[in-house]
């Protein structure tokens, strides 16, 4: 009986937390912006009232790390302090999107000036991928090469969650990528877009038997994961979720979360054989490490693992903007109408 009601109760608690969060966020808007935020003093990783490591809080991606290691950094896991400083100086000097292009076709794609983008500091780490040691996505299996219609390494790009390929993406609402349709963020939730990485934020709320993660990747409409930690098995394989089906268990101070039952596999993986395993470890009060291992024997020749270091800031910034999303009313229509106008113009 207790178990049966736990899930809905957990979900309710989660909703309550988010509602109160939204209320706090709205209230705080009426005040002037807080000045000079700083990191709270680091301390030991806290524990919950029931004695487990406390992962709760709002966590930010702090530094820019490319997913794969570049050729320039081959065999080099970390940059030197001087290299980081030089890269950051270059970023600070760069006008970026503030630079207007004389070519209006290019200029329109600039969309907004640089104030709407974030520029994270450069990380010493040269790739999110920590395994394999070369910092690259492992080669595709022969089957995946055939399935994806391409060879080489890595597989398909991250994909936008729509059903369209490059040529047909703006054909109809179903083919348009997920984010302009405000269908929320996608797994595995990596900050792969440095221009918006500052918006890659997740909030964890935790109970003894379940945990909720709210994910916001800047502007796509948010996403809520519920991770059950009460030992229940995965949902039947016939049940698929966009965010997958997550089960967690503690190993020492690390929460191991296995997620299966995805509608789509990451980077073109086969959803029936694809699995991601996350390891959440709170290093200290200010730092959370999230390691993710991607496995799919039908897609990659070996598993691969990324490391994401996330941090906190002071309480006044412990909020995520309400994810209410309404570009379905404007942006999506505009994109589809625009595509039809282009087709008409091409016929003339």
């Amino acid at each position: 009986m207790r178990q049966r009601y736990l899930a809905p109760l957990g979900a309710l608690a989660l909703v309550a937390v988010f509602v109160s969060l939204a209320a706090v966020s709205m209230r705080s808007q009426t005040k002037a912006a807080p000045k000079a935020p700083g990191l709270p003093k680091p301390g030991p990783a806290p524990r919950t009232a029931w004695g487990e490591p406390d992962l709760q809080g709002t966590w930010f991606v702090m530094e820019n790390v490319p997913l794969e290691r570049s050729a320039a950094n081959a065999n080099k896991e970390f940059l030197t302090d001087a290299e980081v400083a030089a890269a950051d100086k270059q970023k600070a000097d760069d006008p970026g999107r503030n630079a207007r292009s004389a070519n209006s076709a290019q200029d329109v794609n600039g969309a907004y000036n640089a104030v709407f983008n974030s520029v994270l500091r450069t990380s010493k780490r040269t790739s999110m991928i920590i395994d394999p040691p070369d910092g690259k996505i492992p080669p595709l299996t022969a089957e995946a090469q055939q399935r994806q219609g391409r060879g080489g390494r890595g597989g398909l790009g991250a994909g936008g969650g729509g059903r369209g390929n490059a040529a047909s993406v703006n054909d109809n609402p179903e083919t348009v990528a997920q984010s302009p349709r405000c269908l929320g963020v996608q797994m595995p939730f990596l900050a792969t877009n440095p221009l918006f990485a500052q918006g890659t934020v997740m909030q964890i709320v935790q109970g003894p038997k379940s945990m909720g993660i709210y994910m916001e990747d800047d502007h796509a409409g948010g996403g809520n994961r519920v991770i059950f930690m009460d030992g229940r098995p995965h949902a039947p394989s016939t049940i698929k979720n966009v965010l997958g089906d997550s089960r967690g268990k503690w190993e020492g101070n690390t929460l191991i979360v296995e997620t299966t039952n995805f509608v789509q596999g990451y980077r073109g993986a086969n959803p029936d054989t694809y699995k991601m395993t996350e390891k959440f470890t709170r290093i200290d009060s200010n730092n959370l490490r999230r390691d993710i291992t991607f496995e799919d024997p039908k897609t990659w020749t070996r598993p691969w693992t990324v490391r994401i270091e996330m941090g906190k800031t002071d309480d006044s910034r412990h909020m995520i903007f309400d994810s209410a999303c309404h570009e379905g009313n404007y942006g999506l229509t505009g994109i589809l109408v625009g595509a039809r106008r282009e087709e008409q113009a091409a016929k003339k």
Partner: protein
Amino acid sequence: MGIKFTVGAAAAGIAILLSQAPVWAHHAFAAEFDANKPVDFKNATVTRVQLINPHSWIYVDVKQPDGTSENWAIEAGSPNILLRRGITKDTLKVGQKLNVVGYQSKDGSHRANGRDLTLPDGTKLFLGGSGDGAPYEVQRPGIDTEKK
């Protein structure tokens, strides 16, 4: 989309080269906005501000030569980034004057992207003060902070 992406990548230029990864906003803006229909509104009056995902919308009244005014919806960046820069709904108030440079939507409606938003005196809108940025953000003079 392949061609558009290439064009877009060129426009983003150095920023993207620096970031070492092909990155883009969640949609190609050329799909929605018309490069042949630039708009340049001086002294428009803000009538409504919606800081909302995935993109903020700023509504402005634009005076026409015949004395009437048109209400335009200007698309701008996401509220999450702005919030982390200490920018709230009080930063831009109804009644405030605003210069808008951007491109009209392809469907010909009174919508445009806000390529550059400045106050009539030339001050950049949404300039975050130094230290207002989220943790570890690189501060760019003239973009995130006053120009040195």
